[in-house]
């Protein structure tokens, strides 16, 4: 019997989603057992070698210890000076913010996610610039960081779907104009750390349940099936439910919930009766809120790989230009 014909029929055998991983494992086990797939390894490595220029470090003639030291010592001294400079300056987020919150860029942990732009899907790369109307979808167990130029940032949890709608200019009663950053969270969870910038209004985040706006502060917004809540850690967040005219202000330590009958409730985190919800809130906080030193480490790592420079273009951090 022709193998190809059987293989084509095989995917039609119904398998429960929970067993699909096992099915794949068994299909490979059935074909090759525990032995490595030599042909596959060979073809991958051949193709890889074809596209690579392999640098081999070779010593063509005997080199004396003194001549090695002659080159190594100045190099070591340079490295030591650079090390001290980096240690002294570091990458700190407490620098003077010069830029507006425009031009966010994206970073993500593995397995990352997808950025949908004008009908095309792109895998999220670190340092990727996000344009207006881009949609970000994260895979389960990954976290994406939407970093704005003014150092505001959003941490997007796995299995989230978020759109960046760009900025909108709002005319004030005194005829002055301010800008607003517009984001939509269709599904998932986000942690926001918003920095107040003088020429910007508020971040507005639309959800199917309502709209929240924040000028400065930290918060967690969770919008999942059968679970919607907003926890404010610092600052203040205004929330307006779609079906209500009243705008509610959520303060630090408070949680805004949408209960049965679409009623908006504001409760203190300490007063929460439902232990399950409280545990859920604490778990979200542990998973999402990366502390500043952790985030600094991440930036430093990306900076070393020259992948996050776009995120901090022209930003002056700790009175020196770190990113070119």
């Amino acid at each position, binding site marked *: 019997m022709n*193998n*190809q014909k059987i*293989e*084509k*029929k*095989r*995917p039609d*055998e*119904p*398998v*429960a*989603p*929970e*067993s*699909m*991983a*096992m*099915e*794949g*494992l*068994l*299909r*490979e*086990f*059935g*074909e*090759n*057992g*525990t032995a*490595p*797939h030599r042909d*596959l*390894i060979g073809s*991958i*490595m051949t*193709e*890889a*070698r074809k*596209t*690579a*220029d*392999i*640098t*081999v*470090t070779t010593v063509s003639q005997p080199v004396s210890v003194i001549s090695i030291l002659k080159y190594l010592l100045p190099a070591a001294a340079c490295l030591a000076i650079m090390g001290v400079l980096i240690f002294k300056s570091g990458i700190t987020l407490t620098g003077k913010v010069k830029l507006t919150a425009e031009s966010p860029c994206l970073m993500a*942990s*593995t*397995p*990352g996610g997808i950025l949908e732009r004008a009908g095309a*899907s792109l*895998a999220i790369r670190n340092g990727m610039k996000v344009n207006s109307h881009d949609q970000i*979808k994260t*895979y*389960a*167990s*990954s976290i994406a960081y939407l970093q704005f130029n003014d150092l505001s940032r959003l941490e997007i949890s796995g*299995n989230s779907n978020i759109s960046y709608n760009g900025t909108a200019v709002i005319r004030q009663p005194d005829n002055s104009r301010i800008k607003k950053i517009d984001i939509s969270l269709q599904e998932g969870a986000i942690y926001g750390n918003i920095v107040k910038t003088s020429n910007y209004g508020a971040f507005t985040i639309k959800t199917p349940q309502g709209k929240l706006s924040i000028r400065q502060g930290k918060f967690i917004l969770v919008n999942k099936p059968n679970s919607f809540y907003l926890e404010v850690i610092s600052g203040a967040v205004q929330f307006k439910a779609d079906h209500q005219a009243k705008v509610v202000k959520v303060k630090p330590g408070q949680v805004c919930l949408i209960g049965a009958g679409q009623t908006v409730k504001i409760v203190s985190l300490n007063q929460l009766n439902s232990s399950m919800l409280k545990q859920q809130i604490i778990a979200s906080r542990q998973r999402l809120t990366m502390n500043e030193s952790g985030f600094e480490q991440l930036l430093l*790592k990306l900076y070393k*790989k020259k*992948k996050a420079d776009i995120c901090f273009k022209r930003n002056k951090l700790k009175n020196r230009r770190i990113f070119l």
Partner: protein
Amino acid sequence: MISITKEQLAYFEKQVILNHKQVLAYALSLNLDRHAAEDLIQDAFLTAFHKLAEIDRDRSFGAYMRGIVRFKYLERGRKLKEICLGDAIIDIVDQQFMEWNSGEHHRMHLFDILEQCNEKLTEDQQQIIRMFYTEKAQCEMIAATMKINETTVRKRLERIRNELKGCIKKQQKGAR
């Protein structure tokens, strides 16, 4: 043409040897036929090779590869206008592979554990596995050979998969 060092090439080769079977199993889990799965993972490994300098070696290479395979799978589906599995189902598959890889040392032995678990099955169960996955017989043919109903074969297959899954979990737990 990308420029890489000999050390980077050796690292990549080691990761291909360590991960290729599991990455292939992951691609096969996404309902692809073997040829498509092999092409897809070859393409995925080459993508990883071109981004070798950016790879974070502290993180799981397998998880990184699964991310690429997932993206390429969806891209292929769009290009060929084929219906792909939904994100929710792929997440379930991903989660299972992540559990199997939770300890670094288990990754290379996963197929050995599966072999041990397979040996613990009854003779009938082993025969079904052999006929279905190795000889690639259809359920109809297995049913006729074993003189049982076709539906029973499907039910038994599902039960065997669950048993093997449980066995792997138990073995890995015991090894930790």
